[in-house]
């Protein structure tokens, strides 16, 4: 490996460093047991499960629609996409028709949510690299999204706006104008972010060529989302297994073959731009009509095994439910993206220096409750 001028001398003299569960770089209660040789990471062992909340079990002991709010709390930064997957699986199982207006609004709010989630990641990633100011810049823009979505849904973070068969209610007055204004304001801000950070020489030295996670490793550990797109594979659930109105929309899947931290960074920055494009198209095409389809008063899924996947901010989120025809689920399985994305840390961190390991972990964009569920 040509990455460092000096190399680890091997496992003769090592010590164990406990990174977390209370550590500023783990963004929550994640614990990583590092076997260090000086500044080099010889071995990393992930200890997850500190915020395990039994979400899957909760899905199995309450009526179908009552589990919906839980899904927004698994990955608290992309609640829209998560609730979308859950309502999607029930709609697919029961064959419920969703009005087009509801589908378009779902896409708009999901993409807004994706931007706000990527903004948090952008700030936190720079925080991991020691730059504190970008976080505040990111939160400035994120605040506008949160305000828009708060006016619409009443919640700022754990939205539960989608319902089986449509939406809780129609758009509030002024929503379209607010979103259009945000899109207009956010484009120049993205340019400024690029000038402030992406072209900064210190930043580039820290991310370019460091934390290589190639396609093979992604496949081995089931990493999805910006991780696999940053390794050069254009896998995006919105295109690979189209759902909602995404097939009708014109957007590119951001891909970068470099497979380093910079590639994942670039992919996420590009995704924000693409999300803006999607939002604009949806606003232009937004049809009139009802936002709620015909849904039976008491939800009852036919016997069978159903699944539905959405592209969340961190990758593929998939809900699989097994129904035996009873009013509650026999099994609810949540396939969350962060678990796969984190699992490869053990392999990818080997041989890195501590600071680069942290930088690489930052580029994974972890949300700890999403790992533990």
């Amino acid at each position, binding site marked *: 490996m040509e990455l460092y001028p000096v190399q680890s001398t091997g496992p003769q003299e090592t010590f164990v460093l406990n990174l977390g569960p209370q550590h500023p770089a783990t963004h929550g209660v994640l614990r990583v047991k590092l076997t260090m040789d000086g500044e080099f990471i010889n071995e990393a062992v992930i200890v997850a499960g500190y915020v395990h909340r039994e979400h899957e079990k909760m899905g199995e002991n309450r009526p179908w629609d009552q589990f919906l709010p839980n899904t927004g709390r698994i990955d608290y930064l992309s609640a829209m996409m998560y609730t979308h997957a859950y309502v999607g699986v029930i709609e697919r199982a029961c064959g419920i028709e969703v009005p087009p207006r509801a589908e378009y609004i779902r896409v708009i709010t999901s993409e807004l949510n994706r931007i706000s989630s990527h903004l948090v990641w952008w700030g936190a990633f720079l925080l991991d690299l020691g*730059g504190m*100011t970008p976080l505040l*810049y990111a939160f400035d823009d994120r605040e506008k999204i949160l305000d828009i979505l708060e006016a619409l849904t009443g919640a700022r973070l754990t939205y539960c706006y989608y319902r089986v068969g449509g939406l809780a209610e129609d758009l509030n007055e002024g929503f379209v104008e607010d979103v259009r204004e945000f899109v207009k304001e956010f484009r120049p801000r993205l340019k400024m972010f690029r000038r402030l950070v992406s072209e900064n020489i210190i930043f580039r030295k*820290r991310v370019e060529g460091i934390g290589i996670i190639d396609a093979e490793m992604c496949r081995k550990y089931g990493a999805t989302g910006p991780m696999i797109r940053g390794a050069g594979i254009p896998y995006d659930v919105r295109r690979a297994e189209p759902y909602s109105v995404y097939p009708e929309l014109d957007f590119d899947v951001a891909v970068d073959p470099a497979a380093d931290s910079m590639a994942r960074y670039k992919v996420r920055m590009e995704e924000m731009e693409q999300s803006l494009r999607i939002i604009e198209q949806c606003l232009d095409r937004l049809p009139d009509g009802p936002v709620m389809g015909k849904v039976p008063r008491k939800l009852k899924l036919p016997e069978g095994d159903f699944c539905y996947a959405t592209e969340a901010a961190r990758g593929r989120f998939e809900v699989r439910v097994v129904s035996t025809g009873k009013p509650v689920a026999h099994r609810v399985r949540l396939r969350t993206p962060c678990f796969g994305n984190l699992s490869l840390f053990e392999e990818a961190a080997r041989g890195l220096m501590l600071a*680069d390991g942290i930088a690489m972990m930052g580029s994974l964009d972890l949300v700890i409750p999403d790992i533990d569920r």
Partner: protein
Amino acid sequence: MIAAEPLRLLVFVAGVAAFVGLNAAYLVWVERKGAGRFQRRAGPTEVGYAGLLQPIADAGKLLSKQMIVPPGADRFLFRLAPILMMPPAIMAFAILPFSEYLVGIDLNVGLIALFAFSSFNVIAVMLAGWSSRNKYGIISAARVVSQNVAYEIPMMLVIITMIMLAGTLSLPEIVNQQAGAFWNWNVFALASNPLMPVTFVIFFVCMLSETNRAPFDMAEAESELVAGAYTEYAGMGFGVFFMAEYANIVIGCALAVVLFLGGWHSPVGVLPGVFWFLVKLYIMVFVVIWVRWTFPRTQFYGLLNLSWKILIPICIFTLMLSAVMIKLV
């Protein structure tokens, strides 16, 4: 006429101690206000007018907290480290010339004495990290030592260049040589060394690194090492490290002003010298704060590479260049 000299020294010591204390306390305020402005927020506003009493409130909080010595730590060295941190910083101020009349001691080896004092903080940080029996602390201690060894060398090479130019080690003497208009300042002394601005930038970079400031704050890289060497310190033990950091920034910036920016000499010729000295000093301090809140942290080997592979060769080159120029001119 009883003992005028001891009295003068006493007044000066009190003055310097007050100056350091005020600077350390209020630069924290300036830093927090500045960071607030850079980040589009207000900074401290609650305690006193514009948050001006915030440093006092912080100091009161830190003083009222217990200093906990972690079990298994080296109790003596753990307590000694913060004590070793502050006095050298205060002593260094005795040598700095604030104006023609405001000089504590005009030592003929002033520059060397200043470096002797200001290099002391490395030992203190190393002891703090090593004695606190914390793995993050030990990593931080190792980083501090190798970082400071790496940056002491280009710093010294710059200083040697300046000494050759000035022909003296006395700080007031160096300032006096830069009298007159601003093109007499050493940073513009292109006649004796065309690379002088580069030398100034190198000095500034080394100064940032010596004071463990971002983007070279390896010692307390909070995203990797929690708080590095200071992790286990609570109360005023931590407070002293915090204050000494700002005192060291002031020393470094003051030295830059003395060596390169004409010390107390005014660029336009009005107002007393001490005013101009402080103006230049705080502009430098502002740049230091500005850099911290703009750049991410460098990687550790990148920092060492910068010193050994880039700064030291350039420094040796400028040193030889000015030696040749002095010989020729």
